[in-house]
């Protein structure tokens, strides 16, 4: 009877698939490294056999035929605020760019290059303890903290042609709600063999985060407390009030000698100083774990306070986690794992405050004589239309986001046979967020305004798996998993806004006299999957594997709903062959190769490609008629994208694992990438998603770890990884590439051309300033020098004159670190680097902009001190042209422009290669004898440490921090520094205790 049941059960599960995690069998030489490591262990040394987590299971690294990077964090000092910061530069093939210095702000993670042209498609899938969670992406994580604001009616005016607008958006980092202290390991799946088991979401790579679990043994308690101070990494060099006044007085004189405008001198406000501070933070963490043969537990709690260095912009986080499991009888194990996180981030507006402070006229005071805030243009003859005073805004306005998140999982695991385990797990990811912003009364907004956005995202995931581990005849080993998964997500958003408060003390939007509901919507998706993996090893010498996954997604229309993703791998371990057996210093030499398919559903909308009608924007009516408007045309031809990856690699382990080397080469080919592309407009639409693009990413990766010296009193270990990636768009449109590239750019994409990278900069070439005339010089595509802006004088497709001038994504990136211990001291130094890429220094462009304005007045922004050196007379050799020149115009009211500062000009494109000392920590372990003398004998260890993050950067980049991105998590939009808040330099002092 029992046998039959098992059989039935197997067949059901095998057919329909589900699940995760193998139980380590007795023959496993090591247990999974899920135990919280004692902090005194310098765990930088690789273990003999390393168990690593892969999709729906675990494996021994020695038998692995896919490409997987692993990080088992064990910081000498305190971990950084978020998981991603922990990973920067430490994992080959994984390129991570923090977007800005605002705590909790987005991060761009690109694994093995940009594989698709949709903004949401390039973020890796994130899986926590087997449950795919809400991950990185602008769409889900961006809050608009001022959605009700309308730009006001400014008429005409000047702008920088192809300039930048600072929005009222803040993109949050979803990884900030995972406690870095709870992480046991991070695995990044990179090649097809590793990622294909995640099918339609695997193309951009997969990050598996495994949290700590309890382990049998004595109860252990670890606690850490640290205090930090953070400061701006640097600030921009801008004019003082007097310099500013002189400059603009001279400019307006040059503009119109007949009607000079005099800017008063005497006040020198340093707005940057007024808005920045040295922020003091605090981190505290405690965890406790233990267990018996039958059960185990892990409990942790954490608190972090990490204010930004902009005044009144704070970040606080509370976290807790419980993980338990219980053996019921000899066959059944059940467990649960729940992590809670709550954060309050009031730094959403930090970016725009900083920008405002940098650009605010420095000859204006912060306060009026009566102590009230000074708005407006003061005594200046002209000034911008809006209300500017960053100090007032920072102090009087509120702008925060409170986010709660629950990551939960319960599982049951049944050992059906000694070699066969069935597992069912149900997991959830619940995100609850309230963003609130309140603008206090100010001259153009006398009654104030407020907005509030509530988001509730709920995801349920069920995984059912059946895992088999069997060795037959001592030589044939099979590890197999078959499973099924069902995932559903519901996302609710409500957004309201109000204006008209009679007091700044009233916060509720219900008290506003004029209020509106901006959004109230529920979005749903579901994914049904079946998958399987079969690994076969012959004598540990020959390895082979196959995986297959079928995904059915609600994002695609019925006729294209299901798609399958196969992958295959082979491995050969010559070190197991008889001819190498004698080379005792080689632990393992393994060659492996894989090929397979993955996909992405990031380009598809929530409800796929059905023709859709919505209530028209702002509920337009036509006379008395209600209206519904087409929001999306039917698109029955849209297909899934497919990424085909080929990977060959080598793993080498020498001298009893003292030295390990992993090398990989890959070639990743994306076919039919979804791209919003133009259709002829006589069809009634101008853009439609089409399967048009082919992309290619090629590259190699090397990572080395070495335990150089290891004696009783002294150890020294090193690690290094280098990755190289080259991205090329192979095929794009059917017709004239330049013109369509310009169209796509206009609609928010990049200027994409086949034969170049997806993040290539195409720029009009700037040739400096003519020293005789002071005119800006431009070079057209024939090499001819022109002294008038190309986009201005060439109407007929000026874009052909743009030249590919470099990639925003680095050619080479990686990191290296050293960990040295002597007696009780430990020193950890880690560098990360990236090279061969470009950054658009939009900060500089913004600080060079003196012509813009609107009808109500000119912006007269503060400027870089570079501008003091503008061209004044024939013979001046300077990069700053004559103030009034052929490429800008401040003349006729309707035709003011400035072409010299556009985001499509090589003038501000700079090499962004850098080497950054990311972390340096010095720790001292207090001797046990000393502890005992002081009556602290219950402590098993005690450590004090000092630590500095983002200590120094070596770079040719003239901005402050080459590691920022104005467009958050979007890899495609990397490479723009738009006065983006530089990362903070953080100093910490802390104490770790174990008992």
């Amino acid at each position, binding site marked *: *009877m*029992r046998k039959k*049941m098992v059989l*039935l*059960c197997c067949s*059901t599960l095998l057919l*329909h698939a*589900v699940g995760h995690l193998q139980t380590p069998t007795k023959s496993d030489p090591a247990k999974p490294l899920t135990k919280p490591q004692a902090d005194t262990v310098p765990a930088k040394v690789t273990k003999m056999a390393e168990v690593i987590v892969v999709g729906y299971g675990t494996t021994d690294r020695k038998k692995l035929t896919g490409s997987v990077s692993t990080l088992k964090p064990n910081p000498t000092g305190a971990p950084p605020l978020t998981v991603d910061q922990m990973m920067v530069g430490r994992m080959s093939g994984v390129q991570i760019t923090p977007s800005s210095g605002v705590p909790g702000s987005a991060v761009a993670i690109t694994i093995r290059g940009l594989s698709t042209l949709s903004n949401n498609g390039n973020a890796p899938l994130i899986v926590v303890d087997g449950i795919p969670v809400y991950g990185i992406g602008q769409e889900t994580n961006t809050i608009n903290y001022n959605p009700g604001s*309308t*730009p006001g*009616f400014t008429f*005409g005016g000047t702008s920088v042609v192809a300039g930048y607008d600072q929005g009222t958006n803040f993109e949050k980092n979803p990884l900030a709600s995972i406690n870095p202290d709870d992480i046991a390991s991070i695995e990044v799946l990179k090649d097809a063999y590793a990622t294909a088991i995640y099918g339609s979401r695997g193309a951009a790579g997969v990050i598996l985060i495994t949290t700590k679990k309890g382990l049998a043994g004595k109860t252990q308690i670890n606690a850490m407390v640290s205090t930090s101070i953070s400061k701006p990494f640097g600030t921009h060099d801008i004019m003082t009030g007097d310099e500013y006044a002189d400059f603009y007085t001279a400019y307006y004189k040059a503009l119109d000698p007949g009607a000079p405008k005099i800017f008063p001198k005497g006040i020198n406000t340093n707005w940057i100083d007024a808005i920045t501070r040295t922020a003091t933070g605090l981190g505290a963490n405690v965890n406790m774990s233990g267990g018996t043969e039958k059960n185990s537990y892990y409990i942790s709690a954490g608190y972090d306070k990490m204010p930004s260095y902009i005044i009144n912009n704070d970040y606080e986080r509370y976290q807790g986690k419980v993980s338990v499991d219980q053996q019921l009888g000899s066959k*059944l194990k059940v467990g649960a794992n729940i992590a809670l996180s709550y954060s309050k981030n009031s730094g959403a507006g930090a970016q725009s405050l900083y920008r405002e402070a940098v650009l605010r006229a420095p000859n204006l005071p912060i306060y009026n004589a009566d102590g009230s805030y000074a708005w407006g243009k003061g005594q200046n003859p002209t000034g911008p239309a809006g209300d500017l005073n960053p100090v007032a805004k920072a102090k009087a306005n509120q702008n925060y986001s409170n986010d709660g998140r629950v990551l939960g999982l319960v599982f049951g695991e*049944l050992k059906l046979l000694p070699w066969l385990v069935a597992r*069912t797990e149900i997991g959830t990811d619940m995100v609850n967020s309230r963003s609130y912003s309140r603008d206090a009364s100010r001259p153009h907004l006398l009654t104030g305004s407020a907005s509030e956005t509530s988001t509730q995202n709920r995801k349920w995931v069920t995984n*059912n798996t059946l895992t088999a581990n069997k060795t037959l005849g001592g030589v044939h080993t099979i590890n197999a998993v078959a499973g*099924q998964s069902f995932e559903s997500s519901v996302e609710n958003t409500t957004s309201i806004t109000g204006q008209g408060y009679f007091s700044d003390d009233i916060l509720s939007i219900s008290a506003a006299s004029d209020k509106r509901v901006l959004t109230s919507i529920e979005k*749903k*998706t*579901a994914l*049904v999957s079946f998958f399987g993996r079969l690994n076969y090893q012959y004598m540990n010498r020959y390895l082979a594997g196959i995986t297959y996954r079928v995904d059915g997604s*609600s994002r695609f229309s*019925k006729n294209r709903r299901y798609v399958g993703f196969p992958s295959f791998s082979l491995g050969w371990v010559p070190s197991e062959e008889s001819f190498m057996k004698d080379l005792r210093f080689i632990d393992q030499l393994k060659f492996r190769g894989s090929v397979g398919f993955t996909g992405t559903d990031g380009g598809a909308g929530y*409800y796929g490609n059905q023709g*859709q*009608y*919505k209530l*028209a924007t702002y*509920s*337009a009516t*036509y*006379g*008395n*008629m*209600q*209206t*519904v408007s*087409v929001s*999306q*045309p*039917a698109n*029955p*031809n849209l297909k899934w994208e497919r990424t085909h990856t080929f990977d060959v690699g080598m793993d080498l382990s020498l001298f009893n694992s003292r030295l390990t080397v992993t090398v990989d080469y890959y070639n990743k080919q994306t076919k039919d990438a979804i791209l919003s592309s133009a*259709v*002829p*407009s*006589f*069809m*009634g*639409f*101008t853009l439609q998603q089409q399967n048009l693009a082919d992309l290619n990413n090629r590259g190699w990766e090397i990572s080395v770890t070495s335990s150089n010296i290891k004696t009783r009193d002294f150890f020294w270990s090193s690690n290094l990884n280098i990755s190289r990636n080259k991205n090329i768009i192979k095929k794009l449109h*059917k017709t004239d590439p330049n*013109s369509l590239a310009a*169209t796509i750019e206009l609609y928010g994409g990049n200027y994409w051309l086949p034969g170049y990278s997806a993040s290539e900069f195409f720029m009009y070439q700037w040739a400096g300033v003519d020293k005789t005339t002071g005119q800006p010089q431009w070079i057209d595509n024939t090499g001819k020098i022109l002294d008038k802006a190309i986009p201005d004088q060439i*109407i*007929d*497709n000026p874009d052909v004159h743009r030249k590919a001038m470099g990639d925003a994504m680095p050619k080479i990136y990686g990191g290296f670190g050293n960990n040295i211990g002597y007696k009780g001291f430990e020193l950890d130094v880690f560098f990360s680097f990236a090279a061969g890429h470009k950054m658009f220094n939009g900060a500089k462009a913004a600080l060079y902009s003196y012509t813009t304005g609107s*009808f109500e007045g000119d912006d007269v922004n503060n400027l870089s001190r570079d501008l003091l050196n503008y061209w004044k007379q024939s013979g001046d050799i300077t990069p700053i042209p004559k103030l009034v020149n052929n490429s800008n115009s401040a003349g*006729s009211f*309707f035709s003011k422009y400035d072409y010299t500062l556009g985001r499509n000009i090589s003038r501000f494109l700079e090499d962004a290669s850098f080497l950054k000392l990311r972390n340096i920590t010095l720790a001292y372990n207090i001797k046990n004898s000393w502890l005992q003398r002081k009556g602290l004998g219950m402590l098993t260890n005690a450590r004090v440490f000092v630590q500095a993050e983002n200590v120094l950067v070596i770079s040719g980049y003239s901005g402050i921090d080459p590691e920022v991105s104005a467009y958050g998590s979007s890899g495609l939009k990397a490479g723009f520094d738009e006065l983006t808040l530089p990362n903070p330099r953080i100093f910490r002092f802390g104490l770790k205790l174990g008992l």
Partner: protein
Amino acid sequence: MFKKNFNITLVAAGILFTTACDKKLDLAPEDTMTEKAVLRTRITAEAALGDAYIKLYEACRSDAYVMGDLSTGIILNFSGTNNPYYTGAIDPRDQNYNPFWENNYKTINLANVLIDKLPADGAFDEQLKKQFIAEAKLIRAYCYSNLIKLYGDGALENKPSNMGVPLRLNGYDGYDGSQNIPRSTNAAVFTQIFKDIDEAITDLPDDFDTDLATRSRATKGTANALGARVAMYVQDNDKAIAYGTKVMQNNHYHLAASIMDVFPDNTPGNSKITMSIPELIMAFPESWNNNLYDNNGVYFYDGYTFPADDFVASYPPKDIRATSMLIPGAPWSTHPTPVKFSHPQIRENMVAIRLAETVLTMAEALANKNGVNQQSVDMLNSIHQRSFAMADRPAPFTLASFAGKQQLLDAIWQERRWELAYEGFDRFDRIRTGRKPNSVLPANRYALPVPYSETAITGQVIKQNPGYAN
């Protein structure tokens, strides 16, 4: 025992998951409706029709509204007569001019969806369905009349076999290149326009239950008035007279006693063009968008466009169209604004067809056909006389005022230029009557260039107009 139950549970769970799977992937969006659902009920189908009207408005607003007068020096902008409509210096690749084309085709697509699919998908009153389809046909005819006058190569110059515009008569259902169609001839496009107008007349109502609807939605009167307008594009006097007569006989429409009654001074922002005034045949109500910062794109109030001095000087003395109808606009504007567009936020009911146009069209068609005739003279008088204060009125025209047919036509054209100024007719009136819009616009640039995207994406299936490189 325990194990046994557990296994059974597992099996049950497995079965449960699989059977429910595919259904769970059929998720319908909450805030949106599919096309079929929209067309099914009267309310939503009517709402889609409402959107077609809004799209028609969008195709007619902004530069599309003023370019006809910018082309002939009635109005100027900051660059004087050096504007591209005047000089013809428009590049096919310049996307600023794409909306003239795009917006009409957007509207046509929606009209096509209604015309094609409402008969089968609509589950409501048959008569009402017919009416909605008729309204959609009129909207489609209106858009093609916009397109043909802007893009048809020689369309207004009696060149029926030259290239018109692509005639798209089906709703959008994906694009993969096979939908590319060449430009139909001018004759084919005009035939389609009249076919739509005639079919629409059958099913359109005489009026709706409110003045607002009667004068903003399509009625029999609207269709006839549009018919008269388009008939003059092809110099078909009989057709113009036939359609025009129907409008004259329609008791919903009367000329206002004074043009000031049609266009009140709206500079305070609270006296819009009244939608109940019987001179209006069709106007776009400004309710189209609840976003207070959006507007109809006709910037007289701010002085962005303004009446040309020499044009204003061309009116006879004391003509209120040059005196009372030009008033100060925004405080910062150095030019007067016509009362026709005097709302400070540029949000005004926008006139599409009014009776004065049809009256002058009739007068012209009759003069073309019959030479100097009393009916034409009366019609001309009806417009000319009311343009003066009672005390200032000149002696009415008589048959004797005109030496011949051409003199009568000249007077009608001149009156049309004065009466319909700022409403965007002049360029097309001049072209269709063989008069140059201005001295610099080359004849091969009477038609605008087809947007580059069309010729490029279709691989030259759609061809460029002869006056342009590509």
